[in-house]
């Protein structure tokens, strides 16, 4: 286990059905993060939510069909996250993006000390 280092958690809130020319938006954001050499990305999927449009989106309610929420979480150093923001900006038309400071560390038997 290494000592924790300062990092930034970037969270991008989109809809599962949001698309760009290349395919689903959340997949394109993960591909872009991979291409940018960021440390990692995790997509989480929720059953129901609403955003700026105020319309309820759900994947189980027939009254609120369509576009259930997706959160893409990317954790890296502050510089690298800031470097990624313009690339992200070009991809998402509108959507909530949050950043928070946290400490990250690598855990596990195969991680050297230091």
């Amino acid at each position, binding site marked *: 286990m290494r000592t924790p280092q300062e990092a930034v958690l970037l969270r991008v809130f989109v809809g599962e059905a949001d698309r760009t020319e290349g395919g689903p938006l959340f997949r394109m954001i*993960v591909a872009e993060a991979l291409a940018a050499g960021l440390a990692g990305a995790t997509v989480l999927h929720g059953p129901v939510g609403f955003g700026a449009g105020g319309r309820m989106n759900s994947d189980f309610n027939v009254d609120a069909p369509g576009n259930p929420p997706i959160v893409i979480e990317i954790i890296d150093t502050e510089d690298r996250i800031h470097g990624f923001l313009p690339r992200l900006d070009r991809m998402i038309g509108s959507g909530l993006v949050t950043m928070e400071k946290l400490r990250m560390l690598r855990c596990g038997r195969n991680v050297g000390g230091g």
Partner: protein
Amino acid sequence: MDVPHEAVLLRIFTTADDRCGVEEPLYLAIVNKARDMHLAGATVLKGPLGFGQSTKLHAPHFLGDDRPVVIEICDSQEKIDAFLPVLDQMMESGLVTLERAQVLQYGRKRSGYLERLKESVLQHLHIHDKPGPG
């Protein structure tokens, strides 16, 4: 058991395919261990897609479920600090993050619950003990 107002949120990033020992899924082993150590709680979130240090894409496939899994545990700094070395022995390698969290409520203190329950029952029975407007 109580959680202090100033607490720590521990998040462990792993995949559904990771194992602890031979068979047990790592995320299940971590949740069980957290329970054994009397941590305040643990929540497992599973996602459809992700990548990590290996830059390999984690997603469901024909041979198994390689989806990303996030385990969230919120407790006091001391208990999280005591849990980290144990976690270190369970995992092979993975990302762990720590952030400060303010705990507003933990446990079954449901303020006003009885009042709301009473109201709901009275409404159901069409009995109104309060005079209506006008």
